[in-house]
């Protein structure tokens, strides 16, 4: 009888064994799909802010699910409780699973304590996209910003996440920056007591040692990112020991 050796069909999708996450599709298939997503949303909105918001919503759904999937598969169901923990989870694990590499850098703002920045030379989603001049500052990275927001919100760290282009000298395409601004709740007294804040001792240390600061070369951009301290890049991770 045909079909004797077939895989057992599970009635409930939750009973099926979880894949290892090694399956791949071609980049062009994803690029086509993403372009259709953007094109469809363009027909539904009147302005760029709405378009970015819709892309972000789409990404939010992806982020929520990615968090659940990765927490179960990669981290053995352990939940992040520290801010730096969740940020480094996003910067390395999430990026590695979704885009095949860790993000280029994770930086922290010194002017505002609650701002962090993940940079990428060329976002995968932006690779085949060119923005017409009349769309100004629109960035399809809003989808990725939505993914990050989804992960953070569902991990218990509400934040406002946006994507920006930052022009780089000597490079034709600007690099993309995901700006994360955490909400007040992450810094409440309860949160501090639950060790959610990075160690205050470390923050003071960062402020007192100006030679550790790497100022951005792009002070002339409208978003002034001077004064960012490099927290973690692929080469020298910053240790947070007391």
């Amino acid at each position, binding site marked *: 009888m045909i079909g004797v050796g077939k895989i057992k069909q599970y009635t409930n999708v939750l009973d099926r064994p979880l894949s290892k996450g090694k399956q791949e*599709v071609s980049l*062009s298939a994803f690029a086509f*799909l993403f372009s259709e997503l953007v094109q469809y949303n363009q027909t539904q909105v009147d302005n760029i802010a709405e378009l970015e918001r819709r892309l972000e919503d789409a990404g939010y759904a*992806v982020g929520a699910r990615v968090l659940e999937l990765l927490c179960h598969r990669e981290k053995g169901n352990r939940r992040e409780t520290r801010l730096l923990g969740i940020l480094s989870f996003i910067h390395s694990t999430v990026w590695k699973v979704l885009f095949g590499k860790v993000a280029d850098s994770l930086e922290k703002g010194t002017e505002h304590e609650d701002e962090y920045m993940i940079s990428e030379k060329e976002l995968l989603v932006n690779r085949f996209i060119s923005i017409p001049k009349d769309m100004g500052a629109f960035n399809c990275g809003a989808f990725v910003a939505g993914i990050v927001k989804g992960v953070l919100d569902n991990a218990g760290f509400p934040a406002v996440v946006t994507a920006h282009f930052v022009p780089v000298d000597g490079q034709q395409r600007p690099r993309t920056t995901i700006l994360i601004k955490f909400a007040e709740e992450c810094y409440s007294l309860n949160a501090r007591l639950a060790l959610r804040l990075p160690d205050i001792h470390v923050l003071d240390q960062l402020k007192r040692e100006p030679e550790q600061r790497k100022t951005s070369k792009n002070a002339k951009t409208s978003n002034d990112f001077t004064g960012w301290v490099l927290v973690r890049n692929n080469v020298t991770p910053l240790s947070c020991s007391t």
Partner: protein
Amino acid sequence: MAPAAPKSGDAIFASVDRVNAELFTLTYGAIVRQLLTDLEEVDEVNKQLDQMGYNIGVRLVDEFLAKSNVSRCVDFRETAEVIAKVGFKMFLGVTASVTNWDTEGTTCSLIMEDNPLVDFVELPDTCQGLHYCNILSGVVRGALEMVSMKTEVTWLRDMLKGDDVFELQVKLLKQIPEEYPYKDDE
């Protein structure tokens, strides 16, 4: 100089850039969810997915022909085989099989056992009429129309509805000869 021999689907898939299938799956899920929220009617969503697939298909066939170096297919049988073995593999990383040819050779079924679009997906009771993978039928239809074959593509079996495989029926309606937009002597 003779053109390069056509490469197998596996060889091409190994040579293109690839991304994690889960990103693809989750993005597609987000698209379907957005469509359901906006359009609310399951039939409208099916139509919209088919249209999106059509748009993808007309551009996808260029890339397919460029990368795969297949020679011109002699008949529809060969076309279906090429789609199933090379096309699906090259873009989705899975192969399909071709079965159920009718007597004239104009209708066949593409059977997929593995579909990256439907990982983690379960259809709720309110959406039982939804063809979740309808974008695929649009892609096939669009791609074939660009190579002058007008087709009708429908879903026969759907794993999300309890069947054991995905079965896509492709029916050749007619061959459209190439039309040139200008006359030579004008």
